């Protein structure tokens, strides 16, 4: 190796290092921002946990101090007065079943709308997607009448039915995008190998669209887990309330009676399982969403 090439190599390495350092320097504000955000979130959550074991007087008088004597009775009171445990299970059931049904209905529909060639396909796709633009409050009265007609008012199956129906437009919108990007040759090859139309869909195209299915599931899961409006209208029985509704009820009864410590205890009971669930699923959720964004 000549002296010249050595010098060139060194200067190249130097410029790469400089560039890396510049990039690192440029990332400092982002890290600072994210660090501050994380610190704020952790601080806020810690404050809520701390407030949940104080007396109401301590919550306001000594907002940042450790309580003189932890008031575990706040948790006892909330647990016995509200049904947050039951509501958590209800939410898991309602949202879990809804997400599965949404995919069962939307995946074949999206496959046909994106791959099949037939008259009116574009119009049909537009009709599906137009559903995204309908505001929920406009549907309250007709949906109430429909559900009452089939005796599903104030039932979890009724709420699931509504969730599935109203989530289909958005899911079809996402999945048609995924299905339309899959290569035609794979379908042709499967047909040549003797696969039926359903087998082509089930054995070839559906596995290829799994990143899209994961993305759609995650978006629907998060959306339905936090959904409040429809649950408020269609569920009245305390035993059938999902978590969002239960938290609202808790907030109302605690604030009107001035039981702020009890409210914070309720928030902790509701939030902790949700955070644990998120930690468990976070990698899959993030990878699913990233895949979705690329597609």
């Amino acid at each position, binding site marked *: 190796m000549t002296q010249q090439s050595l010098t060139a190599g060194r200067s190249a390495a130097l410029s790469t290092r400089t560039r890396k350092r510049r990039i690192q320097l440029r990332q400092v504000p982002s890290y600072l921002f994210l660090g501050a955000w994380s610190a704020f979130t952790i601080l806020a959550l810690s404050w809520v946990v701390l407030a949940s074991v104080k007396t109401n007087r301590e919550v*306001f008088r000594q907002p940042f101090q450790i309580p003189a004597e932890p008031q575990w009775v706040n948790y006892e009171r909330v647990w016995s007065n509200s049904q947050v445990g039951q509501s958590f299970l209800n939410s898991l059931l309602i949202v879990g079943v809804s997400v599965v049904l949404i995919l069962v209905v939307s995946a074949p529909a999206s496959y046909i709308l994106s791959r099949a060639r037939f008259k009116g396909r574009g119009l049909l796709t537009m009709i599906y997607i137009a559903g995204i633009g309908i505001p929920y409050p406009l549907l*309250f*009265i007709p949906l109430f*009448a429909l559900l*009452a007609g089939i005796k599903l008012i104030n039932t979890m199956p009724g709420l699931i039915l509504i969730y599935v129906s109203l989530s289909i437009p958005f899911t079809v919108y996402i999945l048609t995008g995924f299905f339309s990007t899959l290569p035609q040759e794979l379908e042709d090859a499967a047909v040549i190998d003797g696969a039926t139309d359903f087998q082509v869909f089930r054995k070839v195209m559906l596995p290829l669209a799994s990143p899209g299915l994961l993305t759609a599931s995650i978006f629907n899961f998060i959306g339905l887990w936090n959904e409040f409006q429809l649950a408020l209208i269609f569920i009245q029985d305390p035993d059938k309330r999902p978590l969002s509704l239960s938290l609202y009820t808790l907030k109302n009864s605690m604030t009107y*009676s*001035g039981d702020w410590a009890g409210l914070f205890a309720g928030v902790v009971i509701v939030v902790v399982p949700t955070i644990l669930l998120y930690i468990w699923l976070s990698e899959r959720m993030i990878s699913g969403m990233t895949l979705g964004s690329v597609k």
Partner: protein
Amino acid sequence: MKKPLILMCVSLVLIAALGLGVVSAQEPVTLVFWSMWNETEGQARVLQTAIANFEAANPNINVEAVWNGRQNQTLVRTALSSGSQVIDLMDQDADQIAGGLMREGFALPLNDYLQQPAFDHEEVLAEVFLPSTLEMFALEGNIYQFPYIYNTVQFWYDKRIFAEVGAAVPQTWDDLLAVCSTLIDAGYAPIAAEGNEPGYAAFYLTEMLARLKGPGWLRQAAADATGEMWRDPAVLRAAQMTRTLWDNGCVPPETIGYVWPQGQTTLAFGTAAMELVGSWLPVELQTQTDPDFQWGGFSFPAIEGGVGSTSDVYALLLAFMINKDTAHPDEAFAFLRYVMSDEIQQLFTDESLVGVTNKYITWNPIIADASATAAAATSTYGDVDNVASLYSEYLNTILYPNYVSLWQGAVTPEAYIDMMATQTAEYWASHS
């Protein structure tokens, strides 16, 4: 000889039956009641007791309660509009019912029912109610609401602080300002308030105009399509009085940053001496105040030159409404009649620390002064002088935001008058 005896026996049986709230119908009846309470709240527990007792006395009647919480009226409206859900009776803030379901024609007139004998008194039921409660939201002579809980808006104060500084309960606006000075000199914040809670701030505007121009004037000003009523000198005076509270330090300057419930906690902790708010305040603060905290209440003071009186009461009632399409109006009213009994009304005030509408009931000592105010009322007006029930959109888009601007000192009293006059005219021009 036998006939009068039989008649007497029949009469006695009938009287006894009425006394126990027993309804004559024997076929099974289910009353569907949608409630504004959450099932764990104190008021809901009292209603649960009332339901259990009523069902025990009337084995053929089952009261099916649905505890919807404060969104109750919205849910009832959706359900009734769908035409597929049976709801026999519901409860909510009387102002909200008046501006909502009642105005939309869902309510059953109760005039005839109210002529029934009271549950446990000799007079007719209508006579058992505290003055000016039943008639408050009557429409063309018809009474559609059955009020059962009574909140008064008045100054709530810490009696120990008043005693310590030697302050008497203010009777006039000037007295109030003098008490403020005394409290400031003694190192107290005179008035606790919230910085940006429009409903709480507007208590002042409502009370000032009720004292200056009399109850009902504010609602006329709100409905004045020209907006010119807002240029009345009384409004300017009320606006100036609002700013005086801040400029004199009656309302401490740091209040501007308070978010509910921050302001009211200053009263609970003995930093501030009084607050203009509803009679629910002692309940909200009961776990924050000292055990020996002594609550007192007094009406918004009279204003020199004003036509209103301190016996005009700002009353926020909670009421039942029976659905006009119910298949069981007699049974639904029988339940309400029982809710109005001394036993259940006393339970409300004892267990939930709220005021009630039965005139024979002694309110919980913590709100004794509200009881005196309610009993002495010569007239009552609802939220924001009934603007909340009649013109809720106007209230939320014009009246509240502009008064909060004045409250926080963002506009001068003169600018506030201009804004109200102009925007009221514009509002009604676009809503004609």
